[in-house]
């Protein structure tokens, strides 16, 4: 009995930081309609700033003062980010805003590395709360008790602010109809900034509060993000009570999981989440979110046409040049070109899902890494020949996409995006935690291609055939009746349904096809490298693909391919520098604000203008 009580109490204590971060995310989304991906980053700098302040400020007053000051400082950082990065993109499609927040993540990661260094920092213990208290014989850290007490007060304070003050009234009104709030004389810009500052301050507070339990490290940002998304999905976007309840559920489940099923804590959380979603698709206290006012991928553009003769010729020439690369390129350039091709196929598969299907997946790496792991597992455990393992990679990934897609396509917009990310994290944690089979962090090595493919030249040609084949296949599908149905579902669900299109099924199939193609890329990847590690399934990998699609241009069919080539090229150059994330992040933010059509879109506009000037 005492044991169970202790577990529940620990869970409740852990729920504190999670609730603060999740409620901040929820608040910001409610008013600005931006899913702040950088929210984990604000949590992380909250921890770092809190750590530094605790070093400087003495005693108990210093400790608690540091926590509050950390929250304030992070809120100020949030304010600056909102004014510099988000203000210019409020009117832009959701995807652009997301990409802008990815940029912020990268910048903050490197700044944290620059300021606090790569070592994990051990959080100081709270003065006066070092020991444990015994409750029914079970030891409970005093700090846990403190958290248990503090969190409801923070929640209550927040509730009071939102439910009882004029600011709260304005926030709730803006959540419903921000244009109308403006027409009644309220300056929305300040409301947005204020809410963003408050939301990020909460994240920072959460980060600082958990210092004595978890310390500060550079992986905190992504680590908390999954839990936060799960909390928000379970609790319902925009609901404070929902965020609190879900944070408690998740934390308690987690604590019990660690005790009883240490290998599969995350799996348990996902089971809870799927159960909730089956019963209440928009979370315990949530409601359906209408897709952003400007659509997820922007306004419908000029219809895409099959390539004209000139473009076809250009592509053919390009392919010949690529096919002849072994004749004139160095072996290094062959390896690099193989990398680029694989990445292009991966990006193109996401581009298909996002551009044609309008489905913004945040977890596409699941199928890329999934394909790679399927092949690697077959080779390692079943001694399967390379050819068979390679063929089964896309099938395995496709099967995963079929199952995960079935659940995800029930939701739309931000819920869909978060759910895809959550499932990708689930796969990642499975691979990471199930060391006996997957090798865990050490990955799977010695996954080489068969003798006849060993030479880098042959493997390059092999890769070229499969990537070009895959990309052409997706192009073909995009122009087939299925592709039209998919686009119809993207542009207007209702109209598509009215013409007899089963939009759910069409989306499900598109999700699966994109998974198959990402799996194909993953299969090529594992044999080109000879190994695979869990980071191929990471959030960061999914984000890479999203950034690429965005850089290339969402609305152009070539976007994925061009963006992929550009990204790999830039990465190749940038990763030679120590702080390449900072540079890449700034580049992304710059592109979002200055050239939101992406590379292909911008080039095409320039070309059109040029043509217009001539005639």
């Amino acid at each position, binding site marked *: 009995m005492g044991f169970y009580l202790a577990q529940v109490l620990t869970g409740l204590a852990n729920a504190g930081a999670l609730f603060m971060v999740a409620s901040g995310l929820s608040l910001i989304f409610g008013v600005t309609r931006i899913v702040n991906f950088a929210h984990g980053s604000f949590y992380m700098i909250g921890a770092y700033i809190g750590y530094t302040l605790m070093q400087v400020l003495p005693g108990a007053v210093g400790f608690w003062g540091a926590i509050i000051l950390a929250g304030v400082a992070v809120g100020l950082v949030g304010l600056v980010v909102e004014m510099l990065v988000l203000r210019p993109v409020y009117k832009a499609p959701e995807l652009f805003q997301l990409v802008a927040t990815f940029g912020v993540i990268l910048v903050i990661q490197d700044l944290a590395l620059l300021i606090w260094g790569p070592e994990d920092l051990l959080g100081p213990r709270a003065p006066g709360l070092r020991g444990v208290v015994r409750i029914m014989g079970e030891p409970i850290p005093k700090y846990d008790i403190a958290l248990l007490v503090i969190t409801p007060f923070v929640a209550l304070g927040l509730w009071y602010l939102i439910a009882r003050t004029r600011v709260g009234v304005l926030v709730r*009104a803006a959540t*419903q109809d921000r244009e109308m709030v*403006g027409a009644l004389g309220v*300056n929305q810009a300040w409301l947005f900034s204020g809410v963003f500052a408050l939301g990020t301050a909460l994240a920072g507070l959460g980060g600082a509060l958990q210092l004595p339990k978890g310390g500060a490290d550079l992986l905190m940002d992504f680590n908390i993000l999954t839990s936060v998304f799960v909390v928000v999905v379970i609790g319902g976007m925009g609901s404070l009570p929902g965020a609190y309840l879900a944070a408690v559920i998740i934390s308690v489940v987690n604590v019990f999981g660690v005790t009883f099923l240490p290998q599969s804590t995350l799996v348990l959380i996902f089971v809870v989440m799927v159960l909730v979603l089956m019963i209440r698709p928009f979370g315990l206290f949530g409601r359906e979110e209408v897709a952003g006012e400007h659509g997820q991928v922007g306004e419908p553009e000029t219809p895409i046409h099959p390539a004209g003769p000139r473009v076809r010729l250009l592509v053919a020439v390009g392919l010949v040049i690529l096919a002849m690369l072994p004749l004139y390129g160095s072996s290094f350039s062959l390896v690099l070109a193989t990398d680029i091709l694989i990445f292009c196929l991966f990006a193109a598969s996401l581009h298909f899902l996002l551009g044609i299907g309008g489905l913004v997946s945040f977890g596409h790496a699941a199928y890329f890494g999934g394909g790679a792991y399927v092949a690697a597992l077959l080779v390692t455990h079943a001694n399967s020949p390379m050819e068979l393992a390679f063929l089964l990679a896309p099938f395995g990934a496709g099967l995963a996409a079929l199952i995960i897609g079935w659940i995800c396509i029930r939701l739309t917009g931000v819920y869909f995006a978060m759910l895809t990310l959550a499932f990708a994290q689930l796969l990642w944690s499975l691979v990471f935690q199930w060391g006996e089979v997957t090798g865990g962090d050490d990955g799977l090595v010695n996954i080489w291609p068969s003798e006849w493919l060993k030479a880098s030249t042959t493997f390059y040609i092999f890769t070229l055939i499969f990537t070009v084949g895959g990309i052409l296949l997706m192009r073909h599908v995009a122009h087939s009746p299925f592709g039209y149905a998919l686009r119809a579902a993207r542009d207007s669900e209702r109209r598509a349904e009215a013409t007899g299109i089963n939009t759910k099924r069409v989306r499900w199939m598109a999700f699966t096809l994109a998974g198959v193609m990402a799996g194909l890329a993953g299969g090529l990847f594992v044999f080109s490298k000879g190994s695979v590690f869990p980071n191929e399934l990471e959030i960061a990998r999914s984000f890479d693909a999203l950034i690429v699609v965005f850089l290339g241009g969402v609305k152009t069919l070539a976007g994925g391919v061009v963006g992929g080539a550009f990204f790999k090229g830039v990465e190749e150059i940038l990763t030679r520098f120590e702080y390449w994330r900072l540079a890449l992040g700034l580049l992304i933010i710059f592109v979002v604000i200055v050239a939101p059509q992406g590379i292909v879109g911008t080039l095409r506009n320039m070309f059109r203008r040029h043509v217009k000037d001539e005639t």
Partner: protein
Amino acid sequence: MLEVDTINSFYGKAHVLNDLSFSVDRGQVVALLGRNGAGKTTTMKSIMQMVVPETGRVSFLGQDITRKATHKVAKLGIGYVPEERRIFTDLTVMENMEVGRQPPRDGAVTWTEDMLFDLFPNLAERRQNRGKALSGGEQQMLTIARTLMGNPSFVLLDEPSEGIAPVIVEQMVNVIRQLKADGLTVLLSEQNLHFAQAVADAALIIEGGETKFHGTLEELNAHPEIRDAYLAV
């Protein structure tokens, strides 16, 4: 008080207001008449700068307000009552009114909640009810009350009689007369000529975003052919 000078407004490529000009004098109630789709709502949004006219200018109290932020236009004393009501359905009646609250303004009535509950007795009983629990007529009253909380000197009323019960329409007529007596200037859009006749001093008829008639209601009544051509009666 308000001057609209040859404005042209667009939704994307659709040209909705075509060289529209008119003015409203202090203390007047002007009816903006026209069929569905004539451009009445767009005219109001163009005044609020929720739709920004591409050319032409809108001035209020002698000040150019074209391309100003909408909240700044509101702060100058223009109150907007949208046609779809757009009350905050999750907020209570009191909270809806709170959103509209602005500091007192020279030359305009300073409204308090109690004064508004006197004006709209139905709302008084429902102050703690959420917006979504109100009837259509009550929602319409709430939209007006919410706008009056901003102590405007000029109010844009977009089809206040649309979709509400006849008794409530009667009540609306009285409310508008009372507001006029308090010195408020009103631009009121209507398809319902009877309602306009009951409250307005002057009428402006638009069709396809162009002015077709501008004069007093007596003049309009003297020309039934204009009425028949541009209004659905």
